[in-house]
């Protein structure tokens, strides 16, 4: 193990390390801690210039209550859910299939198609922006959740295919050959042999795509405009212009907007990290 395990070092080193850990963490999360502290203060504190002293009262419930009951925030959150969940399902389903095709079969153009998916996944969004917006407007899907979902599924398929194909490549190929010798139809091999083995990959991708899509801002800006379809990342800016300079509400609002992916991350950490490393770093 590198660096040298701390338990093999001197007692003094161990104590220093143990006390450095929380200190470093507080420093690392300082900007976030500041926002959390803001979100439980009463408005009057800001007028009185009491930013960092003791809060004059503890207003956790008032501030978060107002975010939930007096603003469009719940609607934005609901939109985010209705955009994110179908995208996750769609992108994972499509990429299970593309990954299977590219990972199992040998045919001309296999690698070319695979690299096209990877390359497309890296392009700047701006090169797609005008045509995709045009296409969405022409389909009558501008400012709808479906318009966003369709684009997100398409774009995420690039990344998901990369992931799925590499995962399937690493499966024992003898299993598939054995099934073929038994005369099992190809689609049955996909459904009964390969798919059950892909469960960890599906979990990892689902968690990852959920976070990516929930946090998307650019496409929300390009393809939607009102509380009817806007997800929470875009909604938060309208929320903030509604409560200009009311830092206690703005900070509570952004914490609420951030909670779902954070919760998913803490619940499914193992899958999340497996996904992030693209399966390339074992």
């Amino acid at each position, binding site marked *: *193990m*590198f660096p040298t*395990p*701390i338990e093999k070092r001197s007692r003094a080193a161990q104590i220093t*390390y143990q006390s450095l*850990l929380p200190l470093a*963490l507080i420093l*690392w*999360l*300082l*900007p*976030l801690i*500041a*926002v959390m502290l*803001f979100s439980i203060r009463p408005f009057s504190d*800001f007028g009185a210039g009491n930013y960092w002293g003791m809060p004059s009262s503890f207003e956790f419930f008032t501030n978060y209550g107002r975010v939930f009951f007096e603003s469009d925030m719940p609607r934005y959150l609901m939109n985010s859910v209705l955009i994110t969940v179908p995208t996750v399902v769609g992108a994972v389903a499509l990429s299970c*299939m*593309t990954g299977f*095709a*590219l990972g199992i*079969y040998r*045919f001309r153009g296999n690698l070319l198609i695979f*690299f096209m998916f990877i*390359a*497309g996944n*890296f392009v*700047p969004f*701006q*090169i*797609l*922006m*005008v*045509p*995709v*917006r045009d*296409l969405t407007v022409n389909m009558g899907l501008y400012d709808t959740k479906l318009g966003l979902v369709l*684009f997100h599924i*398409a*774009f995420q398929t*690039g990344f998901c295919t990369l992931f799925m194909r590499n995962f399937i490549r690493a499966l024992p190929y003898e299993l598939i050959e054995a099934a073929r010798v038994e005369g099992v139809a*190809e689609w049955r091999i996909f459904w009964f042999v390969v798919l059950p083995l892909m469960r960890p990959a599906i979990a990892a991708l689902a968690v990852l795509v959920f976070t990516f899509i929930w*946090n998307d*801002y*650019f496409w929300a*800006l*390009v393809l939607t405009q009102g509380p009817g379809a806007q997800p929470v990342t875009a909604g*938060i*800016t309208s929320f903030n212009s509604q409560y200009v300079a009311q830092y206690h509400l*703005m900070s509570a609002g*952004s914490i609420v*907007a*951030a909670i779902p992916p*954070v919760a998913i*991350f803490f619940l499914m*950490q193992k899958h999340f990290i497996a996904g*992030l*490393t*693209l399966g*390339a*770093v074992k």
Partner: protein
Amino acid sequence: MTDTSRDTATWMQRNRMTVTPILFLLPGLLFFTVYVIIPIFQSFQISLYDWDGLGAATYVGLENYRELGTDRNFEISLWNNVRWLALYLLAIPMGLFIALFLNQTVVGIRLYKSLFFFPFVLSQVVVGLVFSWFYLPREGLLNAVLQFFGLGTVNILGDPDLATYGIIAAGLWPQTAYCMILYLTGLNAVDPEQVEAGRLDGAKGWKMLWYVILPQLKPATFIAFVVTIIGALRSFDLISVMTNGGPFGSTRVLSFYMFEQALGEYGFRMGYGSAIAVVLFLIMLVFIGYFLWQMWRDERAARHG
């Protein structure tokens, strides 16, 4: 069963190794082509037109690109992209440093690792908001700390010379967390025997890191480079949230300037915007080409090795 159906069955049977992959690829490929591949070419085409997105488009040839050559804002954006690229790469050594710091087995270390990684899970919009409040001249914690140490206040996002660096610092926060997790996973897989062998040869500290550990972390470093470079060139959300390109347009980057031209409040210049997008795309293509070449080499090595 009729004859024809038996014929199709046998045809399917004979060609199943060709037909199956095509059928499985079709839906994904269709989506991807319509929404990603074709739009790239369309953008190239639109960049040759003068178009407001609604009326008729006028063909202007390379006029849009000629205009870019004299556009001061384009130049500023390009330079800011260079700053983003150069400074964003700091996330890699910083991530490695934190990963080495956290690669221990003391009680509660798992929670520490998750909490250090945590900024990456936040959306860039939230990161942008958190940092713009952190930088506030009056209410911000940064200035409160500076004053505590007897230093003057700075208005980072209000100063055209500092604002871009302030935004990049905000971007480095989640990016460092990402690189950290890549290296933590990589460090897990480092061969303990090689480390022992290195120790017996008297390698310690920096030498051990440089000659024994880093070569084994190569896959992690490669991915860290890929995601950091792509992330740097994609920076949009933070700029939009923190400064909206200001003050005086000093924080624009190509991706943001493109959006401003094509969909911003100054009118819809789709053609000109597309020309900016094409330039950004070509810059990115250099990196994408390099990444793909690397992956292709690995792929070939895996096949023949």
